């Protein structure tokens, strides 16, 4: 068993070796290195063919038409393009956007930017299980609402929103619906038509493809319009300029092709591993699972170990690679905003660890990780004044803490 053990598949995944091999065909000197925008020679044509084949694979995974797929540099760009693109194009129709407090930063920070530009954004609170109350969503949509943006699967707690129902509500009320599906491809079946999705952000590197490539699904019927955010050259039907990187597109296409083929079997195997971990840890005192356990992707387990601080726990768990909160924010000292939005108190939010399992996780690794977590939590609790107070029966919520 190789250490550290990687249990952070929601932060990023390794490129599947089969995918890497296909990418190399566009990277080696005797392979095809053309610029797909070059129209005057076969180097360009072959590159373009490869890009289009990959586009079809991406579309197939989500039940879309290849023409509805716009390549981007990743889900962050897709989220930015979808939200700003809609806001800029439909801003005359209305200036209100509805989203949720547990969205990825790429959605939240983009909405904040639009607020500075005169848009109004409603940030819905999720229920304590992480899911949206659809009645609250209905109530939030107004005549001037142009866009609803709700993620499919949450990156921290793995809960699955009822996208089909949300899409239906948005459509009935005349708002466009954007869904960040960076965390759901290959983990949950997706059908953009059945789910009434107008725009969907996709990422390759969360699904065993390369970093630096993503896509935005943009519905054609009825047609969704966007104002381009990146100018120059008019690639991607004018929606996103910039030379395409065929090896990246091919990597994403191939990764999504395998996701479609192997998803059903893979999910069941990974669910077994996740449940094994959960069963090993759930009987410890003062341990909580964050987010709904039923409506949740199979590979995510997010737990709070009360009276132990998350960062020091991660440090103690140096033989396993996990994260506290999302990778993007894990260098900051703030407790996870997602857990805060669920109503978790600061202590529990500070004490959370996200374990995410994946294609290359083994049972042996899970058993090792579970044992290590138990041991280290016990050790840190011995060190924790809060644990000591809890043992003495002190109600920590009643203590007056000296602020600093």
């Amino acid at each position, binding site marked *: 068993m190789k250490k550290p053990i990687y249990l952070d598949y929601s932060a990023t995944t390794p490129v599947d070796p089969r995918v890497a091999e296909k990418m190399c065909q566009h990277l080696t000197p005797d392979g095809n290195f053309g610029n797909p925008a070059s129209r005057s020679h076969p180097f360009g044509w072959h590159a373009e063919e490869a890009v289009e084949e990959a586009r079809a694979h991406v579309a197939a995974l989500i039940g879309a038409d290849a023409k509805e797929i716009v390549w981007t540099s990743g889900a962050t760009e897709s989220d930015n393009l979808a939200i700003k693109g809609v806001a800029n194009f439909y801003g005359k129709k209305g200036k209100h956007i509805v989203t949720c407090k547990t969205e990825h930063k790429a959605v939240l920070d983009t909405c904040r930017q639009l607020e500075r530009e005169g848009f109004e954004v409603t940030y819905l609170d999720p229920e304590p299980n992480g899911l949206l109350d659809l009645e609250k969503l209905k109530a939030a949509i107004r005549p001037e609402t142009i866009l609803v943006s709700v993620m499919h699967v949450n990156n921290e707690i793995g809960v699955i929103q009822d996208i089909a129902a949300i899409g239906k509500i948005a459509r009935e009320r005349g708002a466009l619906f954007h869904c960040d599906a960076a965390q759901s491809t290959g983990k949950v079946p997706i059908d953009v038509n059945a789910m009434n999705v107008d725009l969907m952000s996709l990422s390759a590197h969360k699904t065993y493809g390369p970093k630096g490539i993503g896509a935005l699904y943009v519905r054609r019927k009825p047609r969704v319009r966007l104002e381009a955010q990146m100018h120059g050259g008019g690639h991607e039907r004018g929606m996103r300029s910039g030379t395409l990187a065929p090896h990246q597109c091919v990597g994403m296409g191939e990764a999504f092709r395998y996701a479609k083929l192997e998803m059903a079997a893979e999910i069941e195997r990974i669910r077994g591993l996740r449940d094994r971990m959960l069963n090993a840890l759930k009987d410890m005192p003062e341990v909580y699972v964050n987010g709904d356990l039923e409506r949740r992707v199979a590979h995510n387990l997010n737990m709070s170990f009360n009276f132990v601080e998350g960062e020091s726990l991660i440090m103690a768990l140096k033989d396993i690679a996990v994260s506290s909160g999302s990778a993007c924010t894990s260098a900051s000292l703030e407790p996870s905003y997602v857990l805060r939005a669920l109503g978790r108190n600061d202590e529990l939010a500070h004490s959370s660890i996200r374990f995410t399992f994946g294609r290359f996780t083994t049972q042996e690794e899970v058993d090792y990780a579970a044992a290590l977590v138990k041991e280290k939590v016990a050790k840190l609790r*011995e*060190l924790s004044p809060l644990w000591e107070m809890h043992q003495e029966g002190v109600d920590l919520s009643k203590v007056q803490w000296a602020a600093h």
Partner: protein
Amino acid sequence: MAYSDKVLDHYENPRNVGVLDKSDPNVGTGMVGAPACGDVMKLQIRVNEQGVIEDAKFKTYGCGSAIASSSLLTEWVKGKTIEEAGKIKNTQIAEELALPPVKIHCSVLAEDAIKAAIADYQTKAGTKGSKADAA
């Protein structure tokens, strides 16, 4: 975030973890920080009649740097008079442990903790019999 070897050493083998009797008039207890901020430090000192810190114990809820800062502090204050211990600056701790800028607050907390423990001891010494709780 890369931790220095010294932080790792104190974190993996923390010195002087434990508890002193809070009701002992010669023991001063300082508890600083808040769970909501992600760190709580409890530092206790036992002071002899010459005003010298004979023993020090700590418990810390917090990141590796917070644990290391408090562990290091217990080592430093032992054998010092309370006046000397009260002069320890957070910058000395930060320097010794090579703390990165985002972790400087851990050393500040440690300085606060020893000051609070000393203050608690002095309150007790000044008002013998009455119990003061630093928390």
